[in-house]
């Protein structure tokens, strides 16, 4: 009973929308003349690119929360770790163009009077190595942390609380100058990636397209996972963990691998985020950020994957709009959204659309206690 990744309607709609957006943004941005009404500014494209990385992150959270019932309040940590790995690569690319002009050491190390590169910075001058680290570092952390947690059968709110402590501890650690990650300033002032100037319109468009591609691929991968046999087991674990265990499934390894996969996706999203936004600092580790991710998923509708994307776009678009237009209203609105969605829309926006939409026949699985 293997389901095609393209089988669900919402997913198809999402992929078409993604393709259209990517094309439209790309083409409209390419239109000559900033005055043209159809022209899309670099700023807007950058913004949409940012939302896309958030959407990837939201899919990662939806994968473990919506499908496996594990609520991680520390997914921002994996996102930030991926971002830092990308940041380290970009820092090494600055070379002699930094303020102090040192060919090897990034500016902040000169500033701290360091004489040589710390061991963990070696290798980051090479893009393949950095890419490997973007995937491996979050994966390794998730593997160790998840292994310990899953083995001890830490679950439910306890798991949420220790993931929150994890990201909090990492935030404190990255704030320290001695860690070798630039302290509270983090990394910024990047120059180029793979030899292309990061500020050049062409590079930006390519980065945007890569991000769209990343989001699409993430969606397809996760859709493939959840509709595979393993995905069925994962949902079974969510709905009745003990029963799944008694049926002979190795609940622990399923949970662990979903957690690691989710962390890797989050790390990749972080790397794409940093390449486009051009800054990474320890506030990305803040526990509040991680809670916000969960909110995107909850608002969009969890257990659907595309709902996570919808939520990430909706909430972040609202955030951009409100913080610009009505800054003091934003927190009220966000707080009200949290309360309203959890009380009245347990299946999120997507759930509402499904309910009023044409295809009532499609089965909507309702989560038990998550």
């Amino acid at each position, binding site marked *: 009973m293997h389901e095609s990744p393209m089988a669900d309607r919402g997913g198809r709609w999402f992929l078409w929308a993604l393709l259209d957006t990517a094309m439209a943004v790309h083409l409209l941005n390419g239109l000559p003349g900033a005055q043209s009404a159809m022209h899309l500014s670099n700023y807007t494209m950058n913004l949409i690119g940012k939302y896309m990385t958030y959407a990837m992150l939201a899919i990662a959270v939806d994968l473990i929360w919506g499908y496996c019932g594990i609520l991680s309040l520390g997914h921002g940590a994996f996102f930030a770790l991926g971002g830092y790995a990308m940041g380290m690569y970009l820092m090494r690319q600055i070379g002699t163009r930094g303020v102090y002009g040192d060919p090897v050491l990034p500016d902040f190390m000169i500033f701290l009077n360091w004489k040589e590169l710390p061991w963990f910075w070696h290798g980051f001058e090479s893009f393949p190595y950095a890419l490997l680290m973007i995937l491996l570092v979050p994966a390794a952390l998730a593997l160790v942390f998840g292994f310990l947690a899953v083995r001890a059968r830490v679950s439910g709110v306890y798991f949420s609380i220790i993931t929150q402590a994890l990201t909090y501890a990492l935030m*404190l650690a990255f704030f320290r100058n001695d860690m070798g990650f630039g302290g509270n300033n983090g990394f910024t002032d990047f120059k180029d990636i793979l030899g292309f100037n990061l500020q050049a319109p062409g590079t930006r468009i390519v980065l945007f397209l890569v991000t769209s591609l990343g989001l699409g691929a993430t969606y397809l991968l996760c859709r493939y996972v959840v509709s595979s046999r393993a995905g069925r087991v994962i949902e079974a674990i969510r709905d009745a963990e003990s029963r799944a265990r008694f049926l002979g499934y190795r609940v622990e390894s399923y949970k662990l691998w979903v957690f690691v996969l989710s962390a890797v996706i989050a790390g990749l999203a972080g790397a794409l985020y940093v390449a486009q936004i051009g800054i990474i600092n320890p506030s990305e580790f803040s526990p509040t950020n991680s809670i916000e991710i969960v909110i995107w998923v909850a608002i969009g509708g969890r257990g659907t994957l595309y709902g996570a994307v919808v939520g990430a776009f909706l909430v972040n678009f609202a955030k951009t709009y409100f913080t610009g237009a009505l800054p003091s209203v934003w927190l009220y609105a966000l707080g009200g959204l949290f309360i309203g969605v*959890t009380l009245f829309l347990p299946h999120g926006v997507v759930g509402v659309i499904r309910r009023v939409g044409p295809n009532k026949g499609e089965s909507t699985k309702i989560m038990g206690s998550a």
Partner: protein
Amino acid sequence: MPRIRPRLIFPALLLLLTGASLAEPPVGADTKPGLPSLLAALPAASYADKRLLIQQMLALRDPRVRAVLQAFLADALVARTRDQHVFVAEASEDHPDQLQLTDPLTAASAGAESSDDFATIGVNNQLRKELRVALAQFDLASLDQSVRLAAVKEMLRALDPRTQQMLRDRLTQEREPSVRREIQVGLALADLDSDEAATRLAAVTELSNSLNPDVYNRLSAMIQKSGNGSYGEADANVRAAAARSLRSIEHYRSFYAAIQTLIYGLSQGSVLVLAAIGLAITFGVMGVINMAHGELMMLGAYTTYVVQLLMPEHIGASIIVAIPAAFLVCGIAGVAIERGIVRHLYGRPLETLLATFGVSLILQQAVRDIFSANNRPVITPEWLAGTLQINDVLAITYNRLYIIVFTFALFLGLLAVMKRTRLGLEVRAVAQNRGMAKAMGVRTEWVDALTFGLGSGIAGIAGVALSQLTNVGPNLGQNYIVDSFMVVVFGGVGNLWGTEVGGNSLGVANKLLEPYTGAVLAKILVLVFLILFIQRRPRGLFPQRGRSADA
């Protein structure tokens, strides 16, 4: 109405005290002949004569002399130009060109007069020294031991054979150990300069349990080898004794340092317990994850601020008023949150988490809109400020002690409510088996609301305490939320004792690590330890036994 100047009250008070101690005629009684004439001689006297006059005054053993000497030392003893009458003068507050006069003989006010008509009775440095010694000698006989102690310290600052003799005399009759100790240490320090090796040896041995930093420095200097190979102390025996004394002093020092670390750790742990103990009710007993808990503490802190705004004249009492006020404000807020949101989400802890996080955002923004985004100044009442100086190396600020005591009292109070009251019984019953409790006639909804209100009210009280320790701003709550959840889980969910013990041991662990790692790394290490600990023992230090633990 001119304000009464403390400088005038102080001599007057001392006058009363010393008066009683010397069993001399009380103030206002017939004056002994001598003091008026000695005073009258002062304005015209040369410095040498003044010195003699001071000694004669001392010999009178008259309590009123102290105020005269004090004023003399402070350049506040003046003579009226027209009749050379001597007064204690104080610059008038309302009229800068006038002097407030006090008659030194009767200690009664003698009105205010223009400063042009007066000349200050001059003092030189030698006289000042003389006056200080004379005052110290006076105070050495005071009934108040703290006055005596201060006098001894004053005399030790400049010892000469005369003052040494004075102190030795005092030692024969002094009964108060702290004053005796101070005199002994001071004299022994002086003996270190003696030419007799035996005297020095005795002094070094005498000093072996003194925590005075001077002693430590002097003894260290004695065994220090200087550049040309000679030691600060010539005699090898004395040197060996000095080394022994130093070791003993270091032993004492590390002991007191350990006590200090323990108390600092307990006070930091108490802050954690304060932040967590309300959660131990809402999360531990009810199983509700209230992410707005930190914001309820913030509300408590702001309540303190508002109470102080409402009663600016009684800052000292404001904290006492703020405690019940914060309990009410936050308790009501808690009941509102429970009725409005949480009760719809029972059995769905993760949704509760999200919804209450929404509440926390709204509360933060509300506080920003009402009180501005800046920190608000909350005043610390005088009785909370200050330091308890136990000895030369151990000093503890009162707020640390108060926070430990306060937290423990709050904990005991809460424990009593949970174990000894009807409400506590019903809360535990509902937590253990909701259906059964309901069947037995417990109004579970009512109990839920009250429990949540209780936990929130406790958060408010914690906020009052925190307002004395940290900045009161919209982000106050956020800083504690991760820590407090960790403390509750570490201690064992549903176990108040666990929270108390867990919080305090984490605080002490933090303070133990701090000297080696710095504050931030210590905190990170404690967090990492907690994460690993919870993964080893997910049920915490003191796991809840019974069926509810499996819920």
